[in-house]
C-alpha cells in the first residue's frame, strides 16, 4: 500500500499547487468558461480526495495489506480499545489527521451553508417588505433606491431577482433584458452553490493559498457563463453597454463604504472592464473538440483516486 500512498500524495500535491496555479493563469478559460468551471470542480474534489486518501491508506497500512481488510481490522482493534503491534506513531497520526481533516471540511461546508441560508432568509424578508413586484416579470421585484443595482437572491424554494429604480432609469429595454437574463443564468446553473463550496474550502484552509486563487477564478468564470447566456438573447454590445453604464454610474461603493479597506484595483484588469473587453473583442470560443478533450480529462481526473484505491484492493 506504500506505492499507492505515494501515488495519491503526489496527485494531491500536484492538484494543490502546480496545476491550479497554472490553470488560474491560463487564457483559454475565458473562451470556454463552462468547461473550465467543471475542471476547477474536478481539481478541487480530486485534490481533497487524494489528500485524505493518501493519509488514510498510509495509516491503514498498519492494520492490513488491503484497504478493505485493514478497515475491518481498524474497526475491530479500535472497538477493543487498542492499536495493532508494530503500528508507528506516524501511521496512527496520519489516520487521525485524515479523520480530523474530513470532519473539518464537512463541518465547515455545513456551517457556511447554514449561515448563508439564514442571511438569505433575512434578506428575503427585508426585500419583501421594502420592494414591489414587477408586473409581467415573475419573481422579480423593484427596489426604491437611486443606486443602480441588480442582483439575484437564490433560495432553495424561492429565488428572486431585484432591480433598483436607479437601474431601471439608467438602462434601455434591451440592456435590461441582458441584465435579467444574466441573473437568470446564475439562478439556473446554481452558481451560488458552486461559489459557496469554493468559499467554504477557502475558509476551511486559510493557510492554503491555492484555495483563494481558485475562488477568484471561479467567481470570474460564473460571470462569463452568465454573460454568455445573456448574449444569446441580446446583442453583445447591449450587454457590454449595460455593464459600462452600471459600472460608470458613479459607482456607489466609494461613497457608501468609505470605511472599507482600500483595495488594490488595477483599472484595466477590473472585472467590469475584463467582461466588456471579452464581450466586444474577446477571442472566439474554444473549439468543441478541445472542450470535449478537457471535459474528458476532468472526469478521468476525478476517477483517478478511486481507480487507485480499487486497484490496490483487488491486487492485495
Amino acid at each position: 500500500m506504500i506505492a499507492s500512498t505515494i501515488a495519491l500524495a503526489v496527485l494531491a500535491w500536484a492538484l494543490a499547487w502546480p496545476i491550479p496555479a497554472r490553470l488560474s493563469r491560463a487564457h483559454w478559460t475565458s473562451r470556454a468558461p463552462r468547461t473550465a468551471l467543471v475542471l476547477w470542480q474536478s481539481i478541487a474534489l480530486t485534490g481533497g480526495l487524494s489528500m485524505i486518501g493518501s493519509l488514510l491508506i498510509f495509516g491503514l497500512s498498519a492494520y492490513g495489506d488491503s484497504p478493505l481488510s485493514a478497515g475491518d481490522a481498524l474497526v475491530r482493534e479500535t472497538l477493543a480499545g487498542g492499536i495493532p503491534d508494530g503500528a508507528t506513531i506516524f501511521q496512527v497520526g496520519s489516520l487521525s489527521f485524515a479523520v480530523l481533516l474530513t470532519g473539518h471540511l464537512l463541518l465547515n461546508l455545513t456551517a457556511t451553508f447554514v449561515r448563508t441560508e439564514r442571511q438569505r432568509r433575512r434578506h428575503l424578508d427585508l426585500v419583501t417588505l421594502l420592494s414591489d413586484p414587477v408586473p409581467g416579470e415573475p419573481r422579480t421585484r423593484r427596489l426604491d433606491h437611486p443606486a443602480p443595482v441588480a442582483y439575484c437572491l437564490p433560495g432553495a424554494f424561492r429565488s428572486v431577482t431585484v432591480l433598483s429604480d436607479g437601474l431601471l432609469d439608467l438602462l434601455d429595454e434591451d440592456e435590461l433584458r441582458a441584465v435579467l437574463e444574466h441573473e437568470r443564468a446564475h439562478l439556473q446553473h446554481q452558481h451560488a452553490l458552486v461559489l459557496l463550496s469554493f468559499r467554504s474550502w477557502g475558509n476551511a484552509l486559510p493557510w492554503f493559498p491555492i484555495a483563494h486563487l481558485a475562488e477568484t477564478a471561479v467567481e470570474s468564470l460564473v460571470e462569463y457563463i452568465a454573460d454568455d447566456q445573456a448574449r444569446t438573447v441580446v446583442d453583445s454590445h447591449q450587454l457590454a453597454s449595460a455593464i459600462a453604464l452600471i459600472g460608470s454610474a458613479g459607482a456607489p461603493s466609494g461613497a457608501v463604504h468609505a470605511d472599507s479597506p482600500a483595495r488594490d484595483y488595477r483599472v484595466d484588469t477590473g472585472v467590469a472592464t475584463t467582461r466588456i473587453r471579452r464581450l466586444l473583442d474577446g477571442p472566439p470560443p474554444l473549439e468543441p473538440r478541445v472542450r470535449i478533450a478537457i471535459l474528458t480529462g476532468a472526469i478521468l481526473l476525478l476517477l483517478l483516486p478511486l481507480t487507485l484505491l480499487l486497484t490496490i484492493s483487488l491486487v492485495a
Partner: protein
Amino acid sequence: MAQLGELERSIMDALWASENPLSATELQEYLEERARETSGKQLAVTTVLTVLSRLEHKSLVVRDRTVRPHLYRASSSQADHTAELMHEILGSSTDRGEVLARFLGSVSPEEAAALRGLLDQTRDSGRSA
C-alpha cells in the same frame, strides 16, 4: 407565499406609519379603511394575528405582552431596514457575494472613469452594427 408577503408588508407599513404601538384590532381597522379606499381585500383579525406572530418570529415586530390587548410596534424604522438592506446589497469586500449575486460588483472610482470611456465604444459599435 407571495400573498403572505404582501400582507406582511401592509402590516409593516401600517406600523411604520403609526406613532404609537397598535393592537391587532386597531391594525385590522386601519387596514380595513385602507382596503375600502383601494378596494382591496378585507382581513380577519385572526389573519392579522397570524401575520403579526410571523413578523415577531422574524424579529421585525416587537410585542408588548404586559398589556391587554397586546400591543405591537416595528422593531426598527423603515429607514433603518432600508439601510441594512442596502448595506448588504452594496456589500463590503469581506462579505462579498456571500448571499446574493450582483450583476456587477463594486467598481473603483478609477475603473468607473475608465468605463465611461468604454461606454462610447460600446455605443459606437452598437449603433453602427
